[in-house]
């Protein structure tokens, strides 16, 4: 049995250190070691995006990343995107526009959408659909997810304009 390795991560701004087998998948390290159970496992084969987190600025599927690969990385999960007193515009928009039902895909959706709006602050509907195609939802039929993201984009842009 190979030795466990010393893993250091910064997760949602907090430094974390632990010993882990290199084969441990990042999703399980987050969920089971750090109790960040927002990201979920939906498919195991990098198709569904329920496990999406941000690693060093990229949205990735954490079911297809060994914790060893992520060693030293800065990670943001859904838990780091807003707090009960300060929800992110996307978190608010998903609720306002009924962008979720069972909620299982939602953490991955919002995490991916956060990045999408950073990359493209004024997406068209088509760009949202294309940019969210790595995240599957079985409940909503996507229509309200798309609506939520477009609404959040509008809100963020309006706030930016107001600030300028």
């Amino acid at each position, binding site marked *: 049995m190979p030795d466990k390795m010393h893993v250091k991560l910064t997760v949602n701004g907090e430094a974390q250190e632990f010993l882990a087998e*290199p084969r441990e998948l990042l999703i399980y390290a987050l969920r089971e070691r750090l109790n960040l159970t927002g990201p979920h496992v939906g498919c195991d084969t990098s198709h569904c*995006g329920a496990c999406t987190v941000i690693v060093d600025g990229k949205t990735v599927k954490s079911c*297809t990343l060994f914790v060893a690969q992520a060693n030293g990385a800065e990670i943001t999960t859904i838990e780091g995107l807003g707090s009960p007193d300060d929800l992110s515009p996307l978190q608010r928009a998903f609720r306002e526009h009924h962008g979720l039902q069972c909620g299982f895909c939602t953490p991955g959706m919002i995490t991916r959408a956060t990045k999408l709006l950073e990359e493209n602050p004024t997406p068209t509907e088509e760009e949202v659909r294309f940019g969210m195609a*790595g995240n599957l939802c079985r409940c909503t039929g996507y229509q309200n997810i798309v609506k939520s993201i477009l609404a959040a984009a509008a809100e963020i842009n309006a706030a930016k304009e107001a600030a300028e």
Partner: protein
Amino acid sequence: MIPAPFEYYRPREMAAVLALLAEHGDEARVMAGGHSLIPMMKLRMAEVPHLIDLQDVEGLSGITVSGGEIRLGAMVTQAEIIDSKELAQAAPILREAALQIADPQVRAMGTVGGNVANGDPGNDMPGLMQCLGARFTLVGPEGEREVAARDFYEAAYMTERDDDEVLTAVAFAVPEGGYAYEKQKRKIGDYATAAAAVQIRREGASCAAASIAMTNLSDTPVWSEAAAEALVGTELGPEAIEAAVTAMLAEIDPSEDNRGPVEFKRHAAVVILRRAIARAWSRA
């Protein structure tokens, strides 16, 4: 789905990578983005007792366009290809193809080196690189060598690369003329039912040069010299295109899978190829 245990290495220098490969033989494997390898390991269809992560190895990154040449470091991701303004200018077919691979999260991890080294007939980059006449740089115990993409693929998962070699870069001349990457798939996240990469250079009314390759229609990518030749010197009338298609059909050898039976794939290949040629020509 949990992979079997392995020893993990993250060297900074190529020499260390090569030493590990030499030491562990076929028990060792390099990993780039991991988005072909890790799913296989999780399904326990690939066992890798010694996993060498290339992410920190120097000299494998970067996109350079200079002197009519394009060089992509092996660790350049599909997302980087899409985001590169330089590349969009110099070889827009790359962006067009990369956008048709997987989804945003996968493209953030998947690398060009992994895609071409993997040897999976479903991968899009090998056919694309054959179309572009790319050369792959391999580094091994004996030093460095270059292999043409068109000579690289032997069979599914079997390539010209020796187990103790690492692919460090992909290079090709800045392509000229019109281009198209056309792909039929069942949904985003699926591999090609049929895909075609076409580059066409036009002089006056006629075609001066062409290169055509197709993906997932055989156990290797199919670059068809005959198909290209059928176009060169013509004005791409129906007969020329028919000849190109016929030439390609003679070279592909698709197999049945969930995407459909052989007869359908052959038909889809024709349709996709025609569309790719038409689009490339319209841009030439």
